[in-house]
């Protein structure tokens, strides 16, 4: 057990270091960054904002990690967010309670995920093409549901999911942490995670070994759809309205980036949801630096790109290898590095 914890910690060390560095950058541009107050019945501070605003990307990257582990990709999550938000809002406007609205949105998300899964697993369409269909069409579907307007609602229960707090902690934070833990437990306490990795490494041989890859692939896309739906409900609840044009726009790219920053290979295989979640927090911390720095908005994307490039370069196999050589030539300790290389194939 302790060895297991130790391994997990070793796996996420690079992400923790990067996160610490980006948070430090925040602290440098804004000295009050780490101050957290209890104000107006809720925790109030920049660190809370990072956790709270990172919720949509964090939720998306839970599902995205599993999809990518099977050597797939889900480009439709942003559009599914818009659909789910629209469905939840229209149910709330029709006078249904938040439970119905949430269930309806999650069901639609599951349906969208299943559609993607069937295209990929049964019809054997390449994931990037299969999910592109819904990415393009989804926003149109969402606009049909909202009739082209920002559909506002007043249901306090639904709003609570996005803008409320439990014991002073914003609800979205609790939701993504809980879901992250639940899915991690589900894939790591059972053989499920290993089976998903097997599909990503070599689907044919995993099928020959008796793994029902079809059902598993459909399932991971379904989970991704549900995660996206939850993110969509949170985003809609946050502004008390479903904005079909803008909800989740380009967020699929942030989610994929979070998975990559989390050190997961886009070629599938071994994955770590915790590392992806840290990736999502890193992205949100970068956004926070941009907002707090007070730089003109023309620089936003440049700053973001520079930080992201730095992170990816540090993680690149070539740089890692160079560091490894440097370390190995400095202190000859043969047994440790070999073990490490085995653990992180990327």
């Amino acid at each position: 057990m302790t060895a297991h914890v130790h391994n997990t910690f070793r796996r996420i060390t690079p992400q923790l270091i990067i996160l610490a560095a980006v948070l430090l950058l925040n602290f440098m541009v804004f000295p009050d960054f780490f101050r957290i107050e209890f104000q107006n019945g809720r925790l109030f501070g920049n660190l809370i904002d990072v956790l709270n605003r990172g919720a949509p990307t964090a939720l998306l990257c839970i599902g995205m990690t599993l999809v990518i582990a099977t050597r797939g990709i889900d480009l439709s999550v942003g559009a599914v967010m818009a659909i789910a938000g629209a469905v939840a809002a229209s149910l709330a406007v029709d006078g249904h309670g938040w439970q119905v609205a949430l269930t309806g949105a999650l069901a639609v998300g599951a349906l969208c995920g299943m559609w993607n899964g069937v295209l990929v697993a049964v019809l054997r369409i390449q994931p990037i093409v299969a999910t592109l269909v819904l990415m393009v069409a989804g926003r149109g579907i969402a606009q049909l549901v909202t009739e082209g307007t920002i559909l506002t609602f007043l249901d306090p229960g639904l709003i609570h999911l996005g803008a409320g707090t439990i014991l002073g902690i914003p609800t979205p934070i609790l939701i993504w942490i809980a879901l992250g833990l639940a899915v991690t437990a589900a894939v790591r306490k059972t053989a499920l995670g290993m089976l998903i990795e097997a599909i990503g490494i070599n689907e044919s041989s995993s099928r020959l070994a008796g793994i029902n890859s079809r059902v598993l692939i459909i399932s991971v896309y379904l989970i991704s759809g549900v995660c996206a739906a939850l993110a969509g409900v949170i985003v809609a609840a946050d502004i008390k309205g479903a904005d079909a044009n803008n909800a989740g726009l380009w967020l699929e790219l942030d989610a994929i980036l979070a998975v990559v920053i989390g050190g997961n290979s886009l070629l599938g295989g071994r994955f770590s949801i915790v590392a992806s979640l840290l990736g999502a927090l890193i992205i949100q911390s970068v956004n926070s630096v941009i907002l707090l720095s007070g730089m003109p908005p023309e620089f936003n994307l440049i700053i973001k790109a520079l930080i992201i490039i730095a992170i990816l370069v540090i993680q690149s196999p070539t740089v890692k290898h160079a560091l490894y050589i440097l370390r190995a030539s400095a202190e000859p300790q043969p047994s440790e590095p070999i073990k490490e290389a085995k653990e992180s194939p990327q």
Partner: protein
Amino acid sequence: MKLKAMLIAGALSFVPMTAMAADLTIGFSQIGSESGWRAAETTVTKQEAEKRGIDLKFADAQQKQENQIKAIRSFIAQGVDAILLAPVVATGWDDVLEEAKDAEIPVVLLDRTVDAPEDLYMTAVTSDLVHEGSVAGQWLVDETAGEKCDIVELQGTTGSSPAIDRKKGFEQAISGHDNLNIVRSQTGDFTRSQGKVVMESFLKAVGGDNICALYAHNDDMAVGAIQAIKEAGLKPGEDIKIVSIDSVPDIHLAMANGEANATIELTPNMAGPALDALEAYLADGTTPPKWIQTESKLYTLKDDNMAIYEMKKDLGY
């Protein structure tokens, strides 16, 4: 349902309705339903045409220029009396406008202009984005009356012409008033959620008590920011004055609740002035100026915002 009704109405208007025998037949090539404002413009255009007894042929281009060109060619083939065009992009109109000119059908541009020789269209009805920004700035100058006021600004999408021009106009209006300073300015991408997120960071970076006013390049960002201000335990409209542009229904609702202070209307009624100019031209040949500027009306808490909200909410915003 509303949308479906609109689509059906749009489809029906393609059916030749000679039986109606309206005095004037005018074709309207609309961009599509890219935003709530656009939908409202469509609704108002139909209302204005109906009010004047004009048979309006409506074509939705779904954000594609080729669809607009097709629609204009079909209007020309049908021999309409005039064409209203809300161009999706600025370039590439020369040929089709030439065809309309050869057929002696006047074309009026709505809301946006095109990069084509001026003689190819009769007039353009648009708002003045710089003027909108300066009306907002002037309101704040009058409202603060010389008292020190630190302003935060929520910009539109970086590089878009409304963002550039609305910023420019506002800065022009407040320049020379040393009591007014823009202390933070960041893009909120014209969306509610980014408006909220960026306002949250303003409130922390500057401190809620140090912000006197918020200027948002559109109402949606202001509506998002209002929620952020409330969650920070401050009173929007009182602790932080809010002025924004567009005059969408939800900002009037916020103003009715005292949570926002002023908005400048980007009127969806571009068709009214356009049809007036067309009717005058077709009746006695009066040529309108090349640019008809729509009014940028200022709404404040003195107006009956609840009534405006009720009136506007069914326009399709």
